[in-house]
């Protein structure tokens, strides 16, 4: 392997990148767009959910229960029904998302066994809201008289994200998603573009070996990705206040492996197709979507059905999310995170070797 040849490829690639303003802008602007988008638009906290109440008891106790709902940030009382008939229409027109129905003997039965149940009616259509709102509602109702009854003290301590902000949860996972988005796409397009336009023939005809070509292609995009991840981490820290508890150098090392993994996936995709459109669709389906949906980024892996949990092992984003959240939020080091780290390294090596092997040099 000759360094001069690799450098030549790097130089050519860099020149092409710098000439393409759109791609350049996209590469640096969009990660931040995603960061801000996800940071601000995606919030798992539920606030000011409109709810209505049908109070069939009309006692101080029922009023206190309603108040328990209204005074939280989660719920806002907008409607008090006089009968059951209005409820359905009100839900269907989206006037309220939750209805609390307090039965007639609520107050009197509070001190007896077999208290008639309070009904919570939820608009389950937007299930993410519904479920979260529902659970908050249930906990408000159950804790209404809980303290007196319970003998066991439960001391709870919340670690790693004591303020329970979902933004920290999301931003700390976003690193994995953004790096799963760009490198495969850019790298695969870099190669497939040449295939489609035919200039790949010149590469084939040259003394360049496959590995030299791949390294030369890989490095510029690796550098871009490294800049992207650095900018995201810095923005996350300074703007969003995502804490950085762990070791910067460990994070840098893990990120580097992950970047090369994704660049390698891009290379791999480019070996199986000659069409740019297909390359993009494959990149979308194989990297970005799984990274967003199946890596534990938003939806926790432990809650998925068993077979789906196995499926998540296919994607490197899953390992990197464990690493990034562990390092950034829990100050976990290489010892605790040895498993995902090794798996990621293994994955990367497999991907890179396969792409070199699969990239067949065809003589024209």
């Amino acid at each position, binding site marked *: 392997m000759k360094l001069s040849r690799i450098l030549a490829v790097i130089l050519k690639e860099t020149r092409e990148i710098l000439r393409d303003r759109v791609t350049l802008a996209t590469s640096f602007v969009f990660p931040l767009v995603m960061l801000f988008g996800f940071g*601000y638009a995606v919030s798992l906290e539920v606030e000011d959910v409109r709810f209505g109440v049908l109070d069939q008891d009309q006692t101080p106790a029922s009023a206190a229960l309603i108040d328990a709902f209204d005074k939280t940030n989660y719920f806002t009382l907008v409607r008090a029904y006089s009968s059951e008939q209005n409820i359905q229409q009100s839900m269907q027109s989206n006037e309220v998302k939750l209805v609390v129905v307090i039965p007639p003997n609520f107050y009197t039965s509070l001190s007896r066994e077999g208290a008639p149940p309070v009904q919570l009616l939820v608009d389950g259509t937007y299930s*993410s809201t519904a479920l979260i709102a529902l659970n908050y509602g249930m906990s408000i109702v159950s804790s209404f*008289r809980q303290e007196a009854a319970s003998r*066991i003290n439960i001391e709870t301590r919340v670690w790693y994200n004591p303020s329970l902000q979902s933004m*920290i949860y999301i931003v700390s996972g976003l690193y994995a998603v953004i790096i799963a988005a760009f490198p495969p796409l850019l790298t695969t397009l870099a190669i497939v573009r040449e295939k489609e336009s035919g200039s790949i023939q010149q590469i084939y005809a040259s003394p360049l070996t496959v590995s030299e070509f791949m390294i030369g292609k890989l490095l510029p995009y690796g550098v871009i990705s490294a800049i992207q991840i650095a900018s995201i981490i810095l923005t996350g820290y300074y703007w969003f206040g995502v804490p950085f508890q762990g070791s910067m150098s460990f994070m840098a090392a893990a990120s580097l492996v992950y970047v090369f993994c994704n660049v390698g996936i891009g290379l791999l995709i480019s070996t199986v197709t000659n069409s740019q*459109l297909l390359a993009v669709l494959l990149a979308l389906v194989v990297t970005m979507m799984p990274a967003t949906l199946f890596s534990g980024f938003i939806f926790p892996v432990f809650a998925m059905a068993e077979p789906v949990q196995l499926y998540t092992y296919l994607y490197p984003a899953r390992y990197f999310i464990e690493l990034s959240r562990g390092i950034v939020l829990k100050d976990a080091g290489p010892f605790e995170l040895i498993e995902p780290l090794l798996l990621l390294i293994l994955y990367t090596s497999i991907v890179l070797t396969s792409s070199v092997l699969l990239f067949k040099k065809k003589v024209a």
Partner: protein
Amino acid sequence: MGGRIMSLMLKELIQFSRDKVILGVILWMYTLEVVLCGYGMTFEVKQLPIAVVDHDQSAASRALIEKFDLSEAFTVATYATSQEDAALSMRKGDAQYGLIIPPDFQSMLKRGESPSMQVLLDGTNSNAATLAKDYTTQIVALFESEFRENLGAPTTVRPVVQIWYNRTQTLESFVVLSMIAVAALMVGSIHPAASIMREKEVGTIEQLMVTPTKVWEIFIAKTVPTLGVGLLAIFPSLLVIWWFGVPLKGSLLLFVALTVVFLLSAIAIGVLFAAITRTLQQTLLLCFFGLFPMLFLSGNMTPIESMPPFLQNFTAFSPLRYYMDVILGIFLKGSGMAELWSPVLHMAGLGVLLFSFAAWVFKRNMA
């Protein structure tokens, strides 16, 4: 004139059908991906892994632990020997919850005193942590009422939950339907964009210009096939919908009709992307990432009410947001035009606006 459009569309169809792999990918997006999401996506707390430290090792503590393990929400991942041990598991991510039972747990209970137990919550996923805390309270209450013979205590208020529209499904229906909507958006925009861009790059679009075809005929030929693909893809989606038991309470015909309206917007966006870029790579990048903000703003991942007010206003410009209302309304609530007139109007308005704008830009580019 009709003949020309027909032959142009035939050409598009032939080119499209040659790309078998692309067909496969589109099919995948509409079906398998949706299925996987249906099984995977949830905001519930299920099988949350716990690290248990049982300093008491009594019948009572074991019964309590068993209550946690048997519940749907939790599962005991590891029995740790000390708090540090549990903390290690939590740092590793093997457990997201630490349960520490003190040594005199059972004896204190028997004496009628109040033992304490410690719960360590991994707050990373704030939603899961909050839910885990609530489930803990409920499980402990359940344990107490079973364990103690003391009946004099007042009962707590028991909530009975009825989910109004999603009676048997919970999140699955929502996820399945929203994934289908997203697939429609992606395919609807990428397909015409790629088709136009490819011809632009190769140069065959110039050849088209030299022929007697009018610009609008080319435009129609580029956009209508996508409508066809989008509508055809509905059928495998229906299979998935049936598989998950998502109810279809409303009119299928209405759904198809409104999907067409939605696809108009998607197609228009694709054409616009193709118009402002010079290479296929740029177009695809733009499609890829330009659609992302729309995903956020659709209420897909997050309820719109939870977004900051200025972002809520932006959602008004996202056709996906209205399509979501439509698709969820028709399937889950049995809504008809009477209830859906508002999102339909918005969607149609946006669709017509975007489509005409796209046509105008297309014509300008071609001239």
